[in-house]
């Protein structure tokens, strides 16, 4: 019992941390954005390094340093609340390229203890990674487990192995649908369309087809032992042809998804070097949580299965 509560708390907590943690850039990101768009304001965090001073145009100026230690004058249009006592600010700001100064548009809060980096182009949307990536990973894990128990069934002809194989394939399909949905949403708001047959999208589509076919096959065979054998065989055949899509094609073909061939950063999931430490911590915690969640769902399916068997046994 205790571990279920812990798991619930764990996933809820890290979801909350992932969603609530503010996105905050530094002067570096501010300068990058300024080169592209003079109007765009982005969230920035800085510590105050001096008293507020009134400026010539009626506004106020506070000297501040960002997380990399760069300092700059931050212009406020009116004196901010608690100006003298605040340690630092989280505020949306833009860089005025004609006056060459940092203008604070809106104060959002105190200097946050930890924050996610501001990633130009992704911004708040980056947070979906905490759900999308674990779901995609669980899809792969569940399908590998399903194939493993398929092989075990063929070796030992124990219907329990077949049951585990189906249960895992079912969960894999569920996670696959979730990963497709979250990925397609992300694609809409980042790349510009829900679906454009990017190699990664093609591969997950094929995966959906395979496991759709797997369940179609199961429902078309009546004798359980035969059903188990045939679906295990199909599982293995599919697993031998589908890697072309799942693992190889998206990685070595150019595409929009991180990790494809023309992406020199190799993507956040493949190499850990490409990701901020806090984000990585939250992502891996979510991955762990999802893994345990998968195990729990497997257990629940096992219990349901035993209850069904018992009922069939007791039935007249």
């Amino acid at each position, binding site marked *: 019992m205790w571990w279920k509560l812990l798991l619930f708390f764990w996933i809820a907590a890290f979801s909350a941390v992932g969603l609530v943690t503010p996105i905050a850039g530094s*002067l570096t*990101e501010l300068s990058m954005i300024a080169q592209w768009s003079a109007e765009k304001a982005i969230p920035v965090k800085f510590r105050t390094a001096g008293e507020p001073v009134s400026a010539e145009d009626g506004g106020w100026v506070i000297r501040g340093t960002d997380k990399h230690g760069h300092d700059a004058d931050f212009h406020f249009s009116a004196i901010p609340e608690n100006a003298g006592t605040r340690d630092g600010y989280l505020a949306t700001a833009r860089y005025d390229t004609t006056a060459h100064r940092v203008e604070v548009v809106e104060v959002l809060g105190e200097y946050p203890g930890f924050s996610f980096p501001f990633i130009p182009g992704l911004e708040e949307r980056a947070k979906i990674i905490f759900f999308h990536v674990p779901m995609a990973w669980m899809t792969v894990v569940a399908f590998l487990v399903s194939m493993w128990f398929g092989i075990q069934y063929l070796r030992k002809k124990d219907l329990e192995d077949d049951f585990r194989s189906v249960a895992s394939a079912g969960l894999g399909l569920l996670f696959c649908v979730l990963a497709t949905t979250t990925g397609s949403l992300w694609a809409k*708001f980042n790349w510009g369309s829900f679906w454009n047959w990017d*190699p990664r999208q093609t591969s997950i589509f094929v995966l959906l087809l395979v496991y759709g076919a797997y369940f179609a096959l199961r429902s078309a065979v009546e004798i359980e032992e035969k059903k188990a054998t045939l679906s295990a065989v199909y599982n293995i055949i599919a697993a*031998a042809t589908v890697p*072309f899509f799942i693992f190889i094609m998206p990685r070595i*073909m150019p595409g929009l998804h991180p990790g494809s*061939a*023309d*992406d020199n950063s190799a993507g956040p999931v493949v190499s850990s070097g490409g990701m901020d430490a806090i984000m990585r911590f939250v992502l891996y915690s979510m991955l762990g949580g999802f893994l345990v969640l998968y195990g729990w769902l497997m257990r629940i399916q096992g219990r349901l299965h035993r209850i069904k068997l018992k009922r069939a046994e007791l039935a007249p």
Partner: protein
Amino acid sequence: MKKRYLVGGVIVVVFLVIGGLSFLNSSVEYATLSKAEKSGKKVQVTGKWVQDMSTHYDTQNNTFTFYMKDEDDRVAQVVLEGAKPNNFDIATSVVAKGRYEEGAFYASEVLTKCPSKYEGNPEGQHPDEIKKSSL
């Protein structure tokens, strides 16, 4: 019996790898500008936006014009039916869907690929340096 499965397994793995390696020098989905010009068909071209060359938004025709450089380093003008896409300025690469006609690539859709490094940039420039670099 065991040996049979072992040998079979090894064959399968070896040929999966050989088959996988074939992807290394093929690109099925994306064309280059030269290919697009030659075929005249609707294709997807991947490449980078050339920032030094001008972009233009025509409000009357609702078209957005920019220059892109494809994988073979060929540069061509791209005319997009529609406004400037999301995240266009910061995209590390773009995918244009359309056809090559009369010296320009007419795109019905332009997708943008964003940097996938999920970290702040510690060695970036200070805003004050923009004065020197951009002027």
